[in-house]
């Protein structure tokens, strides 16, 4: 139904591909921006005679296909699949590959919504899981249940503790176990990290975040390489799930996500330059007990991140010397930084994960520290961001 990605020699550079892959001018009118095909269905030339391969927009839609091609090209994947949200993408992938009785090795430091999906939604369908420390490959290997572990699920950099996992190392464990390695690449974005090239079999994204980049669209995506699964291409299994379960991205949302993706590299460069400056500034503050940012030389994953990523990203977390009360005060005292869940938009956001993004793991062994604040560092002038953070830190002490 969807055409495979064609790798064009015109798209050698990342930003060239971001602007052009899947986004060729409309062949009919020359419109430089492919149209938003806001249609549910497509007229047929005869019974099941489809003019351009499109039958019904749940199966495929030209605007969505264009975005899927664009994203797949940037991840170095074979096929991309766009969904209505990041969680919808994760759900589609997991249900496409898992069967009752299967087991998932789940990186413990990850988005609370992913944890909720596996522990609350899939567990009643007899999907078991074991949480593991993403930085401890021995623990990852020990968690594998031979014959029943079918998926290793990893998020790196992790949310919200900014841990860095060895993707190639995880891939080796997955290969030895005959399981799939899935990497949630939302924090890094395809500009900073391409997990498929490091051995992962599938990448998932909340495209709401850096890919959309402007906090104006909800979306998710799965990108797969050439992996086979249960004797058929993994892409077929995901494509069937997308079509048959139908949590697809709409044409307007696909247009917005594709529009954002074109400037990803520019935005990420600014995000991470600002994040580095914010992290280094926080290090000097007496109110701050610890700064979690892989771009800092003393971060335990710094060398690994430098080796497997093109940069350290725009997310910074830090812990307050004044504990939970200070963390809550900082989160509620910024003005430029909006107190909000989500991340990856041009505007700076601050979050108190324990009660917000990770409320679903509160009271469990996976609970995040209560003195932790997470920043999604925006592209605003960094001096204004530091002024804002300084006022908030002063309010907490």
């Amino acid at each position: 139904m969807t055409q495979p990605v064609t790798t064009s020699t015109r798209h050698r550079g990342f930003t060239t591909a971001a602007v052009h892959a899947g986004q060729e001018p409309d062949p009919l009118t020359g419109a430089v921006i492919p149209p938003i095909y806001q249609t549910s269905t497509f007229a047929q030339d005869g019974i099941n005679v489809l003019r351009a391969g499109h039958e019904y927009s749940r199966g495929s839609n030209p605007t969505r296909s264009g975005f899927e091609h664009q994203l797949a090209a940037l991840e170095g994947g074979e096929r991309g699949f766009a969904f209505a949200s990041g969680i919808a993408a994760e759900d589609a992938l997991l249900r496409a590959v898992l069967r009752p009785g299967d087991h998932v090795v789940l990186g413990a430091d990850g988005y609370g919504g992913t944890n909720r999906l596996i522990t609350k939604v899939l567990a009643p369908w007899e999907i078991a899981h074991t949480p593991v420390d993403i930085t401890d490959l021995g623990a990852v290997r020990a968690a594998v249940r031979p014959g029943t572990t079918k998926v290793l699920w990893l998020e790196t950099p992790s949310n919200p503790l900014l841990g860095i996992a060895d993707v190639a190392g995880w891939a080796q464990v997955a290969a030895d176990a005959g399981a799939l390695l899935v990497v949630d690449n939302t924090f890094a974005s395809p500009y900073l990290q391409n997990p498929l090239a490091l051995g992962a079999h599938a990448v998932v994204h909340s495209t709401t975040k850096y890919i959309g980049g402007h906090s104006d669209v909800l979306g998710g995506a799965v990108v797969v390489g050439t992996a086979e699964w249960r004797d058929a291409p993994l892409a077929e299994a995901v494509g069937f799930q997308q079509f048959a379960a139908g949590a697809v991205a709409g044409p307007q949302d696909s247009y917005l996500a594709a529009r954002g993706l074109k400037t990803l590299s520019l935005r990420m460069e600014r995000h991470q330059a600002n994040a580095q400056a914010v992290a280094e500034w926080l290090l000097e503050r007496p109110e701050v007990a610890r700064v979690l940012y892989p771009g800092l030389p003393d971060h335990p994953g710094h060398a690994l991140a430098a080796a497997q990523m093109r940069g350290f990203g725009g997310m910074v977390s830090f812990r307050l010397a004044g504990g939970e009360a200070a963390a809550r005060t900082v989160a509620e005292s910024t003005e430029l930084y909006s107190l909000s869940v989500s991340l990856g938009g041009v505007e700076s956001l601050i979050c108190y994960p324990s009660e917000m993004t990770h409320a679903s793991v509160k009271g469990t062994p996976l609970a995040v520290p209560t003195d932790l604040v997470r920043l999604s560092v925006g592209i605003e002038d960094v001096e204004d961001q530091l002024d804002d953070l300084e006022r908030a830190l002063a309010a907490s002490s």
Partner: protein
Amino acid sequence: MSVPVTDHDLSTRQIHAGTENDLTQRTLTVPIYQSAAFEFPDYEAAKQMFAQTRPGFTYTRTGNPTVAVLEQRIADLEGGAGAVATGSGQSAVAVALLALLGQGSGKHVVASEKLYGGTVDLLTDSLADLGVEVAFVDPTTPGAWAAAVRPDTRAFLLESIGNPLATLPDLPGIADVARAARVPVVVDNTLASPALYRPLEKGADIVVHSATKFFGGHGNALAGAVVDGGTFDWSAEPGRWPQFTAARARWGGQSLVDKCAGASPYLHLVRAKYVHDLGTTLSPFNASQILQGTETLDLRVARHTASAVAVAEFLSGHPAVARVHHPAVPGDPGAGIAARDFPRGTGSVFSFDLAAPGDAVGPFIDSLRLFKLVANIGDTRSLVAHPAAMTHCRLTPEQRAAGGIAETTIRLSIGLESPEDLVADLRQALDGVLETVQTPGK
């Protein structure tokens, strides 16, 4: 060429017109070409498109495939030869008039004295700055139009249903005067929409719209349109219309009537000169919103119109109402023209005068709960406005008096809500007015 519209096929045409073009993907609805520009097939094609010797989309300021579908649809529903869409109704009126008045010696307009205030602003201020003069006359009396014509008159301008008093013009009579005076008639058909009234069938030459209103119908996007009936013969008196009949360097050394043989020289001037030079462009996204609205045009307008009659009848029986300006209310001067020219009703925008001092208007409006205080009309929601303070505030008191707008005139745009709820809302607010008037010390 235009195909006459019949009442029964309007329902079909409002959904399908303009989509005959073969779109590559065969989408069932119109794609949103959210693109500023278009890639030329090659250099030669670019040269020819810029020289306007080859049709094609170049830059969205002057044309876009999504906008083009809307243009064809509006032209089709009005029974016109073609249309140019604009970014707002106001810009549609402006470019429609500039094309008639902008060149040559004639800069005089005879206009209805019952016009939307923004149109009056345009005529008496911005166009007056450019030397345009206007005579305002009664749209129900063709003789007044004949008396106002001057040798330099180049346009008649009126509304098919006047804003805000729902005044109905004698368009066939005015068109007879115009034909004798050899002046084109421009009709703003915003309040009626082609579902109720098609001015080209009644003798108009050009129709303008704020498509923001009933075409879009949901209060969510601005748009305008200029429709040419293709009926006015610019060549009959070439000296009066040099913008169409004289050779111009801009048109490759040709005149527009020669260049546009078979098409509309008027719309070419509107698009290639005025929309191009002034940039009054409609965005593709807004065009898509309006296109979706057109699909339910006659359903909505029928409901709007029926509810408006019910509300008008209620108002005419309430003691806090001095007068209802709606042709369905007994004694309204528009009844005769309504019966002759408006068999499907006279729309849903009308006014009434409070039987109370002017200072009762504010408390009355603020006590409405369902009617929203909004400077717009033709929405699914019912809207209320106070013309003297809002839409017609820049008219002089004399101009407002000539337009029949009192200090206590309240304009309503009846939405698609339950008419019983609308009546109940008006009743509680009018009862409040009565209470205040009857117990002045309270």
